[in-house]
């Protein structure tokens, strides 16, 4: 997996995108300049997030655990 993909925090990105979307929803008056700034910000977040959500191969690692190796020596000292 690429380093950039690992850095993307999807939770944060989605949160920021939600806030931008809400900002547009809540606006009664048109503010083209600020709107453009928000759109630019959203485009970066969307691009990053979609990059992370694109197909990335899964990695599988099998742990061959020898449980018996954890056995400890016991003695019958209780007898």
């Amino acid at each position, binding site marked *: 997996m690429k380093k950039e993909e690992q850095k993307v925090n*999807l939770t944060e990105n989605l949160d920021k995108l939600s806030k931008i*979307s809400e900002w547009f929803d809540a606006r009664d008056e048109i503010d*083209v300049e600020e709107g*453009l700034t928000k759109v630019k910000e*959203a485009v970066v977040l969307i691009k990053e997030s979609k990059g992370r959500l694109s197909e990335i191969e*899964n*990695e599988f*690692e099998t742990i061959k655990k020898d449980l018996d190796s954890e056995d400890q020596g016991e003695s019958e000292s209780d*007898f």
Partner: protein
Amino acid sequence: MEENKPYTVSNYIELINSTLEGLFADIIGEISELKIASSGHIYLTLKDKDTGYILPCTIWKRDYDLIAIKLEVGMEILVRGKPDFYGPFGKLSFIAKHAELVGEGALKKAYDELKKKLTSEGLFEQSRKKPIPLFPQKIGVITSLHGAVIHDFSNNLKKFGFKVKIVDSKVEGPESGKFLTLAVRYFKKQDIDVLVLIRGGGSMQSLAGFDNEALVREISSFPVPVITGIGHHKDIPLATLVSDASESTPSLVATLLNKSWEEAVYSIDKKQSNILNIYSNWLENFSQKIESSFRKINSFLNNIIEKHKKAKELLRNATGRISLQIRLDRKKLIGIQTDILSGFKSTTEMIRIDKIPNTGKRIIELCLRGCKKISDKIKDISKLIESNDPDKLLKLGYSIISNSKGIIKSIKDIKIGENIEINVFDGKILSEVKNINK
């Protein structure tokens, strides 16, 4: 060892134990005696119900904790292990690594009792369950690598870059409880986002490992959420009850892990559409407002140009009328002058020959009348001139524009870049033509 040389006791006991190594077996019997030592080790006697023969057994504390069955005298159990001759006491004992209850009825009874006990402790309460984190990536999986389960799980896990660590564990029968518990303990020390326990369906005996008390307690205290996907029929495995989330199959567990990732794809598409649609509408509205403003300004300018044209026409007409009036008035003045001179001449003549009595007085009267007539006429002309005076029109805000060739009456008279002179009432403005519109 040399032939015929006697063994020491210790050597012989070693020989016995090495021989006994191969006697690993499952043994069924009834517990006739049971002792739990202060160390926690279990010492019990298994009795053959038919012959009454007995076999001393030992279960070390560590194994007993993992077996997680409360053994009691009278229970019929199966033990799995091997015999060992303990030198210090000169005693043979069967060392059981595993013990389980025998028969579905016993299992069901143990299941019900344990479920009741753990329920009373609140281990299955909804409030204890941890939420599955968004975008889980590091997944711990405990299952058997033999069989289709792991393939069903991994094939249904979509490609979101999951990092899956799998511990191969026994999952079959009561004995699997020990291995499952140890596997969960192993993952407690690993950096994972979520732990998954999966296996296919089976009978109560087959799934008994997932009813292991030690396993249930390990899951209950596990630091990250645990998801189970254990197929079952009637009685829900206790591991499923205590887990933070459960699905009926391993495939559905994979689907659950995919969920937040898939929702993110949908959510991003939706937000993208919302943001861009709103902004696009804004731009369209903004463009319409600009267009509307442009139309208003254009109309205003056209209005001014139209008024200017009318003023120019008015000025031209007024100038024409003034010139005509001046010409007419000049003629009248010349007529009056002629009349006065003629009258004056005849009067002088009459005075000279003294034909008229009181001539002097009449002359004065005639002169006064003539003067008044002239004065009235001059007043009328002054008023007319004043009313059409170009200066007055200039004071009203009109102006006369001229270039080097004279007064500009048409756009044809000027060129872009040409210098023009704008005459207003109190002076001149020098300007340059930037644009010409029809």
